[in-house]
């Protein structure tokens, strides 16, 4: 599973970097930080969700979606939102 996640994540990161470059968007250090932490939490969510399902711990799996997945989405959305607003303002 990790092979495919790494493949998709790698392609996604390269795509994002390319997109930022052609759109002329430069991220601030805290946008990078939010994005990296959010991305890390996404990976943690995926691993712990499927790990818990494999353990027959569905309640724990759902809780991981809540306590890791939700902050991950919030942080990524925040990073995107900050960058998008700043670009729109310029």
């Amino acid at each position, binding site marked *: 599973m990790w092979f495919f996640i790494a493949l998709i994540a*790698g392609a996604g990161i390269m795509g994002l970097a390319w997109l930022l470059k052609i759109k002329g968007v430069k991220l601030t250090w805290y946008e990078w930080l939010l994005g990296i932490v959010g991305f890390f939490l996404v990976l943690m969510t995926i691993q712990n969700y499927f790990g818990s399902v494999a*353990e*027959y711990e569905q*309640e*724990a799996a759902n809780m*991981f979606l809540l306590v890791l997945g939700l902050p991950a989405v919030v942080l990524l959305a925040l990073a995107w939102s900050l960058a998008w607003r700043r670009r729109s303002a310029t």
Partner: protein
Amino acid sequence: MSKFHSMVSRRDFMKAIGMAGAGVGAVAATTPVFHDLDELMSSSSVTPAKRPWWVKERELFNPTSEIDWDLMQRFDRKNEAHSRRIATMYRSVETIDAAAVTQKKIDADRIAKQTPGFDTKYQALKAGYSGSTESPAWAYPGIVDEADWAKTPEELGMPKWSGTPEENSRLLYAALRYYGAMFIGYAEVEDKWRNKLFVKTTTDAVRNWTWTPQNPDPPESDELRYVYENVDQPYSELRKGSTGRSAGKHVIPSKPLWLITIATGACMEATKTLDSTISKSNSSTANNGHEALKVRTFNFVRALGGWRAFGDGGHQTSESNFSAAMILTGLAENSRQGNYCLTPETGPNHIPFTMLTDFPLVPTKPIDAGLFRFCHSCKKCADACPSQSISHADEPSWDVPDVDGKPRVFCNPGHKGFWPDMANCNYYSKGGGTSGCWVCYANCTFSEDKAAMMHNIIRGTVSTTSLFNGFFSSMSNTFGYGPYESPEVWWDMSLPAYGFDSTIGAAKGGYSK
């Protein structure tokens, strides 16, 4: 196009995406697609066995080697190749008989020359499992019938194994793992063991004895005692006590001895089927494996050099308290529950026993994985205990509290611990409240799997700092860890052989974790 400011050009990037896409597409095309886990689990219609994704099922009676059912007839085992009949059908009798003589000579030469792979330690390893498959009768001094004893190197005309205690320890460890042990630790039986740790008596005299204020103890003649004598070999003198159980003495030689602590695996998933017939998982298949392990260890050290491994091995009749032995030989830490101990890898899910030997070994040291410290904050087992037999104290204590005005005699003072009311536990689980229990095992925070990486992150954190122990403990409840909602899930799990992860402790690449 300059690549100076960019590591990847647009062309390179698109090419990479295309390659990756093609790769993913190719894999996707050959990978079975499952829409949910139920579908994945039911992909084999008969068993839930997990096979690699690239293993494909074929039709019944249609394996990859072709079969002509018109040609196929029932085989006559008279034609089996491993028989003298077939051997002499293709070669002369003289040739076959000469080969048998040659084979014996080859075997004898290998042993005589101590050829690597055939030297004493290999012969001992084989002696350990040969003949032990039928589990010959065992008693405190060892295998009962001398006909089942392995031959010593002296009897076989081989050199005796000669190694340092360090080499002995490694050799025995490898053999015991091969024979089925999961956790293995050693101690040198010095004064602390002889005078403080080894028990005085077995429980035999009191198993059927009724306590009254007038007659609190059975007569001494009913006792089966552990005593030390200046003898070369262990022995027992047994008779029947007044309640029909064994009485007399087990003699531990006063010469230098070493303790071997062994634990086999227990099926944590069976424990978590609570409440069910199989939730008391220390009565599982691995418990029966102790009988084979005792016999194998006995014959292994005997075949190595005539040493002796012995001991009763029963948790009510052995010379050792098994949890104490596990803790002092570095296999586990103490727990709030106070009866079981916790290994870093399996928590309370293991099945221990001990043996004694005159085969020199090196003691293994106690460990700190933060487990007992965690128990200070975590009261999950105590909260879950239906008979409230587990202490809710915030800190362990040297003082053993009374039970309803009577001294808590079943707890042995001398260590700082949480003191369980085992009399109450025993009463509750034997009809006083229910039949069977095991709630504490199933609800222990360390009775958890390893698939979600969070478990190992938490274990690593717990071993480093106690700062988050209370938080982790409460999260165990919040996340719903504990017994399964229904025991029925156990039947579809396709667990490892014997129901536990035997790769725990494996260091060889391919098995290591």
